[in-house]
């Protein structure tokens, strides 16, 4: 009997990091904890393993690699890796998935369509590496129809052969032809706005704040830094919106039905400087962020999307949560130095206040 290679998101949790990849495991964990996550399923590393080993993929890749020679530490050889990557990806993407896998994926996709109440649902096929390498592998958005889902799952797998990844593996002396990852197949949120939030003020480490960044359209715009998002700083305790900066967002990242690709679309001038979140959405996001942080027990870096078709508050989805990487790692040190109330009072009474004048 083969290992189980596909799971509904609610069947996995953080304990399955190595099985389905960190992103799937976290989304599963969030789903299980009752957060609003787009419905989806996860392909484990065993799915990758089966695909690579039960088909022609591995022998063909090995065959290709047997004649390939380049130095991963040489900048000049990057060109060679580039063309190798193209070759390897076209080998992988030309291969059919084992029939039972394909059938299972198709039926799970139908189930997602049934749950969403629509045919030809848009889904995202996202890579999920067992160890988080953000952006290392690829993600395909607005995948529609079961043929495309199957095709794009293979494309995600083949992204383990993108130039960056094969060079990285070659440098570390790891097998170049094999790097099992998980894949998440997630219902797309028809995002009117999306972005990132931190459960700590990234500027000064103040853990009493949630910092929210948001832009029109899909969240990639914010994550990639391609637009200047709106920024909000919300107090976790009082839920006051302490700071709000509405930026000129320029463009949004949106789906083009003609080309069937995601693209940056210039916003009309009257929309560019409009806040892309309502106050109630900002506050709901803050409440959710606090719960996510409480669930994982440390400051979080969370991606979210706000659906344009669902009513508030069901419109708000979490699409990613991971430990915040800067302040979360700092050692927790005392800032008051063990002083008593009286020490602090005496200190205050003896220290004049400087007036800073421009």
């Amino acid at each position, binding site marked *: 009997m083969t290992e189980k290679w596909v799971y509904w998101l609610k069947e996995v949790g953080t304990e399955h990091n190595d099985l389905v990849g960190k992103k799937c495991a976290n989304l599963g964990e969030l789903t299980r904890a009752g957060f609003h996550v787009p419905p989806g399923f996860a392909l484990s590393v065993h799915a990758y393993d089966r695909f690579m080993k039960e088909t022609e993929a591995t022998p063909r890749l090995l065959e290709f690699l047997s004649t390939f020679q380049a130095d991963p530490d040489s900048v000049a050889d990057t060109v060679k890796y580039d063309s190798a990557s193209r070759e390897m990806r076209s080998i992988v993407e030309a291969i059919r998935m084992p029939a039972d896998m394909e059938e299972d994926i198709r039926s799970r996709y139908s189930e997602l369509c049934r749950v969403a109440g629509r045919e030809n649902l848009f889904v995202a096929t996202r890579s999920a590496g067992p160890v988080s390498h953000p952006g290392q592998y690829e993600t395909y958005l607005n995948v529609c129809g079961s043929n495309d889902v199957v095709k794009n799952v293979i494309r995600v797998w083949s992204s383990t052969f993108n130039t960056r990844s094969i060079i990285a593996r070659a440098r570390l002396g790891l097998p170049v032809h094999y790097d099992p990852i998980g894949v998440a197949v997630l219902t797309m949120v028809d995002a009117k706005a999306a972005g990132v939030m931190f459960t700590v*003020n990234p500027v*000064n*480490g*103040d*853990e*009493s*704040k949630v910092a929210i960044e948001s832009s029109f359209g899909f969240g990639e715009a914010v994550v990639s830094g391609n637009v200047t998002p709106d920024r909000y*700083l919300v*107090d*976790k*305790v*009082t839920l*006051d*919106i*302490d*700071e*709000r900066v509405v930026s000129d967002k320029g463009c949004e990242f949106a789906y083009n039905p003609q080309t069937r690709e995601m693209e940056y679309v210039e916003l009309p001038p009257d929309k560019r400087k409009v806040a892309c979140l309502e106050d109630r959405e900002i506050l709901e996001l803050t409440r959710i962020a606090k719960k996510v942080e409480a669930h994982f027990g440390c400051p979080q870096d969370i991606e979210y999307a706000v659906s344009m078709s669902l009513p508030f508050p069901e419109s708000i989805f979490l699409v990613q949560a991971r430990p915040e990487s800067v302040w979360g790692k700092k050692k*927790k*040190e*005392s*800032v*008051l*130095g*063990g*002083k*008593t*109330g*009286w020490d*602090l*009072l*005496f*200190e*205050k*009474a*003896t*220290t*004049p*206040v*400087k*007036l*800073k*004048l*421009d």
Partner: protein
Amino acid sequence: MAEEKLGRFPYPHEFQVPGSLEGWEEMYPPQRLFSKDREEWEKNHFWFQDKIHAPEPMYPLDDIFQEAWQIALSGYTTRVFCIPPAQGIAQRMMGCYMYITPLEPPPPEVIQEKAALFGKRVPFVFQNYQRLWEEWLKKFHKLGAEMKELKVPQDLGNYVPDEQVMPSPRGYTDAAELMAAFNTIVNQIFRAWQYHFEYLNLAYLAYLMFVDTARKLFPGIKESTIGKMVAGADVSMFRPEEELCRLSRLAASQSPVRNILKKAGPAEDKIKELKGNDAGRKWLEELERVKDPWFSVSCGSGWYHYEGSWIDKMDIPFSYMQSYVERIEKGESIERSLSEISDERERIVGEYKSLIKTDADRKSFDDAYDVVRSIYKYAEDHLFWVEHWLHTIWFSKIREFGGVLTRYGLLKSPEDIYLFNRFEVPMLLEDLATSWALGIGAPTRGKYWMEKAAKREKIIEAAKKWSPIPALGVPPAEVSEPFTIMLWGVTGDTVGEWLKGGKAEPKDLNELKGFASSAGIVEGPARVLKLLGDVVLLQPGEIMVAPCTNPSWAPVFTKIKAAVTDIGGLTSHAAIVSREYGLPSVTGTGLATSVIKTGDIIRVDGSAGTVKILKRA
């Protein structure tokens, strides 16, 4: 101001008040004026207009409170609790407005000396505050009762009555008693102001310490949140309004009373009508029972004689009750929920505490919080008893002195007594006593006093039309005096704003910055209440713009959309009440009442601390 130099305001001695104020100096005693003989010292200090205690031109007799606090506040800082680097706050009058300056720290050896005394005396207060407060209240009540009982003879009579001569002679006439009574009441008010500062300096210091502590832990914590953490729910200053709510509920439950209270018209008529039925009489009894002390609350700040108190302007509490009764009928809630306020406080403190990263810091925070909570209530409680209750008694007594001077032709009306300072009033009383004693036909200088009063009234009117300069001299580099920072909100930023405002003509300014004291954003028409009596003009849905507010205005906050003040930090009255009512407020803008005009459409951003004029009226 054209004469303004970069980064400083004009020096007191180069500053000219408008010609319409000519002669203003003679209203105030010489020690309260900028003077040639102290020029060097005065030039070396930074003087800013005290809009908290003297937002309006100062009537000479009202100035007594200012004199009294200068001595009391300063003395408690320098000589009683000995806050090491802090010294007192000096006052000067300029064109009928009061300017103040915090003194620079004393020499290092004095700081050391004071530190030892501070270390001995201050912990004692914190450890015993509950008992000290109870004793304070007792002695303060006693002082108020004595002032209330002070006899001010109204009719000197043609001859002293027999009983003052025999069988056991009193030994002095009512004319002598009248002169003595004024000296007594002056002593009483100075004593009251000594009591006022007994624990206030320490309460403010504790508050500032807690702000620092919270900021170290949470750099972005807003002072308005800290205000919520330390504020008490059950404080004397809120009692008058609570009593109004209670009386309104009582009235609402009985239709004859309810219907009378809902009518428009003066309180006098309503009281007359209430006396006509049983339920009304019962309700009036209840009103009488709470009137003393709780209606002895000023309609303004308590600092000016003409503001009046509820007890002598019953139209005001009755108009509040009229709207309360209507709201009760609509099923709205009118009371502040004390338990909600304290639950909210507990929640905020608890949640912030849980965000502290180390146990050691949590312990320090707890300890700092205990220190501030043990004494902060004083900052909230003393206000009612001194500025409201006792000042109400003072004003009504002073009117008795004004009454007798009017009766004997020294003044045109009793209120004119406020046009003479506390050193001059004894002259008028002596003039009266002398003429009475001399017998029939001895003239007083009534004509002279009346002319003086008329001239001074004109000067004060001219001063009301003048927008005084916010400050004089060179801003200092640092401040160590707790009141300056907390009460007047003097920070580098505020002084910078004053400088900016001083340079631009008010009509050219379109945006003001102040303290973000209650979150939220609203837009609407402004109502500028420059004089506190203008509160009756306020329309529902307007944004109130005032020099500052106080608790007797609380019912107003149910009518307005937002509040903006010239002066006041995050724990000022306007800030506290705005937070309770969930209204945006920006306090301490310095210039709002001179820049904004009634009818201007403004946007108040209580989260950012900005006020923007969108459309001029």
